[in-house]
């Protein structure tokens, strides 16, 4: 019998404990969604205040890098979902491969994000750094907002990769057919993906000239 996670104190029954752990994770994700919700509200306010400048400012971002990153995160999410499904189906090795793929794609996402930041630095689009120059205040504001929101998202990506790595290295987690750890790590990873799915039209899509 695959290792069961130890029953911890208040619970009498493993199934109930699993449900509780998962519900706790989902509630945590709801609060994470609200955290980014504040940022989306700020983006909406900026866009309503400065409709034209906001759109123009977004045109300076690299649409194709943003799009590639969206595709990468979506694929990484798929890998996480596959890891859950294969672990549940009793294929720990396959699950491990899927997790590693999800992690590598996450790292690729960070790499592209870093490259993007680098090219924005070369173009003088990073506020406060040497050589920064903007067409106007709203572009400056937009770029500030861009770095705050993508930076905070990148921190969440790093957190998600850490969770996935723990899951990938834990043989017990992969053999646990109730997928407690892998399942919760994957849940977190999907939420990070969903947040990016909304950041993408907020930051990259308003102007694609």
């Amino acid at each position, binding site marked *: 019998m695959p290792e069961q996670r130890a029953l*911890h104190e*208040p619970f009498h029954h*493993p199934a*109930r404990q699993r449900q509780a752990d998962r*519900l706790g994770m989902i*509630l945590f994700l709801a609060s994470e969604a609200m955290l*980014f919700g504040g940022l989306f509200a700020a983006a909406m306010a900026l866009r309503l205040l400065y409709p034209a400048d906001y759109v123009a400012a977004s045109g300076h971002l690299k649409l194709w890098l943003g799009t590639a990153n969206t595709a990468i995160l979506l694929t990484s999410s798929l890998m996480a979902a596959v890891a859950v499904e294969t672990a549940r189906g009793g294929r720990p090795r396959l699950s491990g491969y899927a997790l590693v793929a999800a992690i590598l794609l996450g790292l690729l996402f960070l790499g592209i994000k870093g490259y993007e930041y680098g090219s924005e630095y070369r173009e003088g689009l990073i506020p*406060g750094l040497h050589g920064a120059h903007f067409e106007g205040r709203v572009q*400056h504001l937009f770029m500030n907002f861009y770095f705050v929101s993508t930076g905070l998202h990148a921190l969440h990506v790093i957190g998600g990769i850490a969770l996935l790595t723990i899951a990938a290295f834990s043989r017990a987690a992969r053999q646990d057919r109730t997928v407690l750890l892998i399942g919760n790590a994957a849940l977190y990873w999907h939420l990070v993906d969903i947040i990016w799915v909304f950041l993408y039209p907020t930051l990259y899509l308003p102007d694609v000239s």
Partner: protein
Amino acid sequence: MSDAALDMGKPAEEVEDISYLRAGHSLRSWFLTTDHKRIAILYLVSIVFFFLIGGAAAAMIRLDLLTPAGDLMTNEGYNRAFSLHGIIMVWFFLIPSIPNTIGNFIIPLMIGARDLAFPRLNLLSWYIYIVAGFIALAVVLGGGVDTGWTFYTPLSTMYANGMVAATVIAVFISGFSTILTGINFIVTIHKLRAPGMTWSRLPLFIWSHYAVSIIFVLATPVLAITLLLVAAERLFGIGVFDPALGGDPLLFQHLFWFYSHPAVYIMVLPAMGVISELITSAAHKRIFGYWFVAIASIAIAVIGFLVWGHHMFVSGQSLYASAVFSFLSVAVAVPSAIKVYNWTATLYKGDIMIDAPLLFALGFIGLFVAGGLTGLMLAMLAIDVHVHDTYFVVAHFHYIMVGGTVTAFFGALHYWWPKITGRLYNETLARIAAIVILVGFNVTFFPQFMLGYEGMPRRYHVYPPEFQLLQVISSAGAALLAVGYAMPAFYLLWSLKKGPRAPANPWGATGLEWTTSSPPPKHNFTQQPVVVRGPYDYPLEHPASRANA
């Protein structure tokens, strides 16, 4: 170990009678405990500490306001004093007050669980709270902050002199403690109810804590991101809230009040839960309109999110938005009114024991009604324009937060004190304290309604001399209030040493928490309780039965 055995309740050899207080005496057994009851005690000690700090600031403020010129402090010093008072009282006392002490202790007992769903998370949230508290204390020692507890931009981001960034980080960190507590409560209430404890058998204290947990989980993160943006703006000039950079200061207000208005309900909902318990226990009678009271808690939590714009009627917010917010604010008063009417109806034909918990509960109702109805006045656009940002508002929210929440907190502390400590306190002194607090509170804050309507703005250090008489009355009331708050500190502590031992159910109340010994054993119940009746199942038709019991 088979699942079935675990499911059927504890095996006989696990039965233990040692109370949670005696299960370990080392510091380690307290600071690394995962027992929700011990964590509740840790919280109790810490919030009382912060209450003292916030209270000291309040005392300085009231002392300073004795004279119109404010001779005790400088303008800057006064600003720092009221900012400190607000920040400490809101985030380090009021928000954790009832949920993290009484709630932490009583929720698992009430639903027949051995602990909260995530005991280690519970301990972690106390440590997070303490870390945040230490940063806040460091700010105090380092000179304080002069933004008010509201951190309005661009004052906080560009102009304030104090340690704004450190302060908002402290509040930011304390938010995580709140979120973890909320998650813990919701999961516990869903997954750890004893057999037979259906939703219609939940005590109303649980319903109100469920409602407040919704706000914890969904509102606090918005405050977190808002404060993060303030800190980033202060440190790096992000500009989202700074008009000089094209940002919008009203955006800050929207985001801040999206959290902070529901935060008012964070403070008052647990208090309402307490009152439902106190009233039914004192009246020995089933609550009138159980479902209306229960659903009203959830309705307050939900509608409470839709009214934040009533803090912004004179801020330059669109007047159409203001009208919408005003209407929704009228609507949120309905569930609160339902509760008050139901509590009153519960007393009808009861068998009422006039003890300290009831006195605190009645005090709560009176002060909450006054606070709530003046809140309704503030929701009226044309009235708000005049009294906004005046002492009228100050009086209003003190009626809710201090008159309401703190009174309920004291009521809860008295009501559950025998359960928590296993000791009985001196009932006469407790009744006197309840009355002193009620009188002191009204003398302190009622004059502030008058001051506000007459045009005394809040946060004024130097004020026009015609307001001095009312200010002096208010300060005198504050001294009386301080006496009232100090009294329980003496007789409750005294009871720990000398108080008679409490029986399991000193009030003759229903509820699972009264079926276990006082203080409860480490795992709450020696046997898994099974619930077969609804809450407040008092023998309605035979009130005399209590005398025989």
